[in-house]
């Protein structure tokens, strides 16, 4: 097992673990945005820069995807590494000035605001880390959203920037978004769930007893298909909200006079 020396602290990790894995094991914090254990690291945000000692020279590398293959020495809190992370954060703050999550992370890093104006906003408050695109395709299996455009024009969008027909309204993208830009909105009157800013809308399954929205109808279909349960009673239960399901179950039990 190779040893990683981070800021003087030694940890052993499996071959091909990343510097970030090693740092977490050693209890050393490295800020990240586009990293998520559920999907492969694309290292797009460049926030997790650390300095790798190569003997004759030192190189900035991204901790989230640099594979450890031999003993290495890494600096997380060297001036150069801190400056690089600060620089990246300042650019991100200029791009997504309204994100509270981003501000909080910047504060934790000791970055106070940005000297840069907002000059790119192909997608408001989005840092284009790509986690939503990855989770939709690789975990949910839908690819309802993808990147469109190049350079400063890059955005995340459904094909032709229209509401996606493939979106099942699961909200995984919103859950994984590190800057809180993707939101799940419920439209009670229309009984629809909307994934913003992609404008995709999906019908909600509503409780047949009380009318409370339960979950996106497409999600429940997908769950049924994936779990391969086609059991009438189960389907019945799915039509009720948890509250109604509980009261119905207890009513049935009562009727069966268990407590008599």
């Amino acid at each position, binding site marked *: 097992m190779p040893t990683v020396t981070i800021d003087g602290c030694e940890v052993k990790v499996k071959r091909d673990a990343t510097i970030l894995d090693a740092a977490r094991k050693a209890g050393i914090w490295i800020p990240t945005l586009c990293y998520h254990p559920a999907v492969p690291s*694309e*290292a*797009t*945000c*460049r*926030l997790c*820069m650390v300095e790798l000692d190569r003997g004759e020279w030192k190189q*900035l*590398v*991204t901790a989230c*995807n*640099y*594979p450890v293959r031999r003993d290495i020495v890494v600096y997380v809190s060297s001036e*150069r590494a801190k400056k*690089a992370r600060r*620089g*990246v954060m300042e*650019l*991100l703050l*200029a*791009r997504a000035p309204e994100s509270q999550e981003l501000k909080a992370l910047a504060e934790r890093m000791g970055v106070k605001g940005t*000297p*840069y*104006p907002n*000059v*790119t906003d192909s997608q408001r408050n989005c*840092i*284009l880390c*790509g986690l939503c695109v990855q989770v939709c395709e690789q975990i949910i299996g839908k690819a309802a959203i993808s*990147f469109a*455009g*190049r*350079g*400063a*024009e*890059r955005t995340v969008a459904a094909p032709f920037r229209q509401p996606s027909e493939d979106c099942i309204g699961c909200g995984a993208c919103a859950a994984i978004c590190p800057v809180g830009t993707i939101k799940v909105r419920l439209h009670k009157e229309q009984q629809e769930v909307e994934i913003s800013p992609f404008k995709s809308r999906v019908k909600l399954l509503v409780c047949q007893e009380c009318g409370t929205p339960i979950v996106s109808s497409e999600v429940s279909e997908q769950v049924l298909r994936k779990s391969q349960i086609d059991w009438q009673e189960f389907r019945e239960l799915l039509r009720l909200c948890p509250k109604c399901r509980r009261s119905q179950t207890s009513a049935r039990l009562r009727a069966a006079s268990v407590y008599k």
Partner: protein
Amino acid sequence: MTELGIKRFSSLVELEGMREKLLNSRSASAKSIHVCTGPGCVAKGSFKLYEIFCAAVEGAGSDVQVQAKCVGCHGFCERGPIVVIEPGGIFYQRVEEPDVAEIFRETVLGGRVVERLLYEDPNTGKKVEKANEIPFYKVQERIALSGNGLLDPTEISDYIAEGGYTALAKVLSPMTPEEVISEVELSGLRGRGGGGFPTGRKWRSCRQAEGSPKYVICNGDEGDPGAFMDRCIMEGNPHSVIEGMLIGAYAIGSEHGYIYVRNEYPLSVERLKNAVAQAKELGLVGETILGSSFSFDIRINRGGGAFVCGESTALMASLEGRPGEPRAKYVHTVESGFRGKPTNLNNVETWANIPHIINRGGKWFAGIGTEKSKGTKVFSLVGNVVNTGLVEVPMGITMRRIIDEIGGGIRDGKRFKAVQTGGPSGGCIPAEHLDARVDFEELTKLGSMMGSGGMIVMDEETCMVRVAKYFTDFLQKESCGKCTPCREGLAQMLYILDRITDGEGQVGDIERLEELGGLLEGTALCALGKTAANPVISTIRYFRDEYDAHILDGRCPAKECRGLFRYEIDPEACNGCGICLKNCPADAITGEKKVPHVINQEKCTLCGTCWEKCPFTAVLKV
């Protein structure tokens, strides 16, 4: 191929036999008309010239031994269309359709030279008959381009007759893959696509990498604006690239090759496809090549149409059918590249050098150039020089010799200001470094780079801040947008540069640009972003006073940035003709006929109409 009287070579002996037969069939007195069909000459109508020559050949009857052939770019594009008559190598330039009959009658049939179509040496005023006597060619040393201007790129027999595929034969007869790699290592050849990585070492790593199949790829994406080196090799001598790849594949242990050609190069695709098909027919590509146990197939793919697709990992993603975006290279492509398999990628020019290295030996190649940069390099020389075109020079030549001797100096008697090398993310080198030697290390030390061989010469009337802005704008548009520093950083840099050229620069802008440059270099994901600040950083380094003039004095010293200079009429030169007055859209010019006119600076909108229209160049930028 029935035309060659042979179906398929099943041994080296058969290939040699064919070469002898081809050479014997050429009679010493037979004339050959070489019409250049490089991109520059084609743009000036050389295909039509070729057709007319063909008709003339046909009309001459069978007792006249003459053939017309299209050949690859000669390089002297400034003087195109070019026609060379062999034997004798009589070099005609700026040939037009009506000249064809005269050339045919006088030179081809009569053996006389048509003086007026010869090149005139501007230094001596003398007419020059042969290419190698023209200053443009004298300083050059052609290896990668040696077949250009000589071979018909559509005919494999031409390539074979000139010694083509002997290097492959040599490799397949007594050499082990190990020996091939050692020879390439000995040559000191470094990648011509930009990075300058030692080719032999790359091959060795790929050979040693675990996994199969292994892939060999040729990078023909050539996305640099204004560059056409690789194009001219692919279109002018496609078999040299194919032969190089065959040798590389043999050395590495690969059976599958791809050539990734820039989408805007349909003729390159056509020529390469044709060449691969011909080589296949003769058993030079495909299964059991030349009767050996070595097999190698080549496919031609069209590029994704973006500059970044030329980057190695983006290219491989694009070949796999995914978006052409780079990925981290902490695990090298020689280990895990195309389809996750060991992949060796080299540039067109790199491949084209290989047959020569095998034929003449690594030691010969290493004898050319500097300590760490061996051999020659092809450059596309453009901008404000007299002779633009494609040039191949030994490494280590000074920039001054390229610009003055080959390029013929600056156009219109103006003064040199800077030369930009290395493509869009190269740097600008000023006059004080013109005696620097052109090699990988030296150019990097000067804040520029070798890149793939773009060379743009700029005269004194070029605003260096605008130059920096132009390249930053190009790179910002071509950035894939995947990573933060490149996408956001370039946009911020462009924003600042826009401000400066609009006369709204602020104190601190230069420092901010430098800071962003450092950030890009250190943190961007791929080499596009890492090098993207070079144009800005190098112009700040050498032309800081120009930035200062814009920011502090609101003045553009080169008088290119609108609003940062004024127009005035020189009363000495003004003839009072009234043309400016009539054309001024702002009614800002006053003056009586035959009396010097005056521009009312309050009213002037700085549109520049008067400056363009004045027939006496009396309107000055001040």
